[in-house]
């Protein structure tokens, strides 16, 4: 439920002290401040790195009957984090790890990861997944890429609204509701 709807839904609260002034203004301000990630060009990842990150992110969370990592702009989110959020050392370690992934793809007979046949991609990804505890190199880059893919995917607007259907208002707490996993 969006803030505007919440404010309307909670109409009774509007009679309380401090509340009414500026609600519309606040929402307008929020809309203006909200950055459209799709409008931001890649600033850290070059074309080859974009292709590598996009390929791996989509393999972690692929398009199925629901959106995959690429269609909710996870690679763009990762670039934003690398550009504005990560420290210089963290960024350098990540990019070095990407190079290492391509180097390992080279050992499997390809120039880079994105050019590997599908079965080889899965083989290398499985090895990288097992190496997430590494402090440097391909294992480290994969661990961060995976964490950012999961985070970027599940905090995206589409996934929030279409899959998670995040709710912001509950009429009381229930702690013992039957649940059957959909897996």
């Amino acid at each position, binding site marked *: 439920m*969006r*803030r505007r709807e*919440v404010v309307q839904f*909670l109409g*009774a*609260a509007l009679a*309380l*002290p*401090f*509340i009414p*002034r*500026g*609600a519309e203004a*606040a929402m307008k301000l*929020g809309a203006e401040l*909200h*950055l459209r990630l799709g409008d931001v060009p890649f600033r850290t990842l070059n074309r080859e790195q974009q292709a590598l990150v996009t390929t791996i992110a989509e*393999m*972690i*969370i*692929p398009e*199925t009957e*629901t959106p995959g990592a690429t269609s909710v702009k996870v690679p763009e*989110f990762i670039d*934003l*984090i690398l550009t*504005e*959020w990560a420290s210089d050392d963290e960024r350098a370690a990540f990019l070095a790890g990407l190079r290492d992934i391509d180097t390992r793809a080279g050992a499997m007979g390809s120039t880079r990861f994105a050019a590997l046949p599908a079965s080889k991609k*899965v083989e290398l*990804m499985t090895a990288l*997944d*097992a190496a997430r505890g590494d402090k440097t190199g391909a294992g480290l880059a994969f*661990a961060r890429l*995976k964490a950012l893919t*999961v985070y*970027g995917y*599940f*905090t*995206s*607007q589409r996934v*929030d609204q279409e*899959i*998670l259907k*995040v709710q*912001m*208002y*509950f*009429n*009381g*707490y*229930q*702690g*013992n*509701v*039957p*649940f*059957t*996993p*959909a*897996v």
Partner: protein
Amino acid sequence: MPPMTYDAIVVGSGISGGWAAKELTEKGLRTIVLEAGRPIDPAVDYVEHVLPWEKRYRGMGDRKQVERYQPIQGHTGACDEWSSKFFVNDLDNPYSFPEDKPFYWIRGRQVGGRSIMWGRCVYRWSDLDFTANAREGYGVDWPIRYKDLAPWWSYVEKFVGIQGRRENLAHLPDGEFQTPWPLNAAEQKARDILLEKFGGERVITNARLAVLTEDHGGRQKCHLCGHCARGCITLSYFSSINSTLPAARKTGRLTLRPFSVVHSVIYDPVKRRATGVRVIDANTKQMFDVNAKVIFLNASAMESTRILLNSATSEFPNGLGNSSGELGHNLMDHIMAGGATGTLPWARDRREIGNRPDAIYVPRFRNVKTKHPDFLRGYGFEGRAERAGWDRGSEMPGFGAEFKKSLTGDLGPWEMSFDGFGEMLPRHENYIELDPHLVDAWGIPALRVNCVYSDNEKKMQADMAVSATEMLEALGATNIRPFKEDNPPGLVIHETGTARMGRDPKTSVLNGHNQMWDVPNVFITDGACMASTANQNPSITYMALTARAVDYAHQLLNRREL
């Protein structure tokens, strides 16, 4: 500018200042509340319903801004991409500590203070706590006992609106409770198992929270969005902004002045009374005086004492009202970051609906009936059982369609955590003083903090990990991860002491009614007044002490004794 004159001055608009304002105005006193920070407009500033994708870093925080402007505040989790605006700019508000004694001072300077982002946990003390100093020879004896404060806890709890479960525990007295949210399926089973396996000694009870489960006093019941520290548009949790300041405003006797940085208390050595306070306008930096018959210092424990240290006179060269030499001393916090987390083997077919901001509490069980060999006093556990949801994905092996389906279609197992919060002993050698070389953005001398945990606290923290592991083992949990982190004091954000109450003016700053022994028309009812800190979260006790002190001050005013 001629001095402004009121009946009463309240310095600070946080959790205790709001109560002082409400009580003073409701007793008929024209009261000015001087708040150092900016005003807050819930319609603009409360952001609890802003979703991650509406934030630039999706909730990961504006890391570089925090590192640059809030390097201290950034140590607390609540200083996040939504709520960092409620924490101070560390560059404007400096303080110092010896290199080998870090102290993280987490502050909020705005109308409402830290009552906007406080933890909302409210637990009464018992005489086990009030008598501890006298029994064990630490600090000074409290001048009050449970019976003195019990009616005032009831008084404030009725106004605050508190949910809790009655447990009839002598060492954690019940209060005035609304019906609590139920324990979830995993927590209920854990409660039943622990009650049986520990013979009733270790009790998982519902967290006692200043969060409404029923509409109360013009405020709506909580809608369980789960993000209290970002504000609350339905005013469902207690804060000064949501509750006490509106009540004070309703009297027509409240003047609330934001951007008013109190520099010092003005003392008349002839009358031996304070005449008012000296204030710096935060925006213009112009200095002016405000006069009143009675002054309540509620600027937060260390800020209230800082004001007094900055109010030295020839009679009180080491700080106003410091004839005891104890002003600034006996600084305490709690100790946390000891406990354990584990995976529960059951209730996979159950889920919860609604986001409780807090869930369970395990009241103190050490040094209650039997003496622990390693340490004095005790600790309680906050915690919860919850399913990890998609968050577990970054640590979970796998990738691809099945991996995705697992994260979107299942919630993962129940993880249960016990996080300890323990008592810190009052020690004279933990103290604050004025730093001779440091001033804040308004030119006011800043504090130097000298504070470390003693072996007693460290042993207690080690035991938190041990006893939490015991409980998880008793529950049949797997993947048990005990933890014991080396946090500096301050980070629990329960800093107390530095102007303690006591029975003797030679060894304490305040009497049994929070009144300064040396300056009788000055009262301190924030955390500074505490003679010990127990292990319970402190705010509800500040509220009760404040209401009690105002009642006493009002009696004195009526008798013309102030």
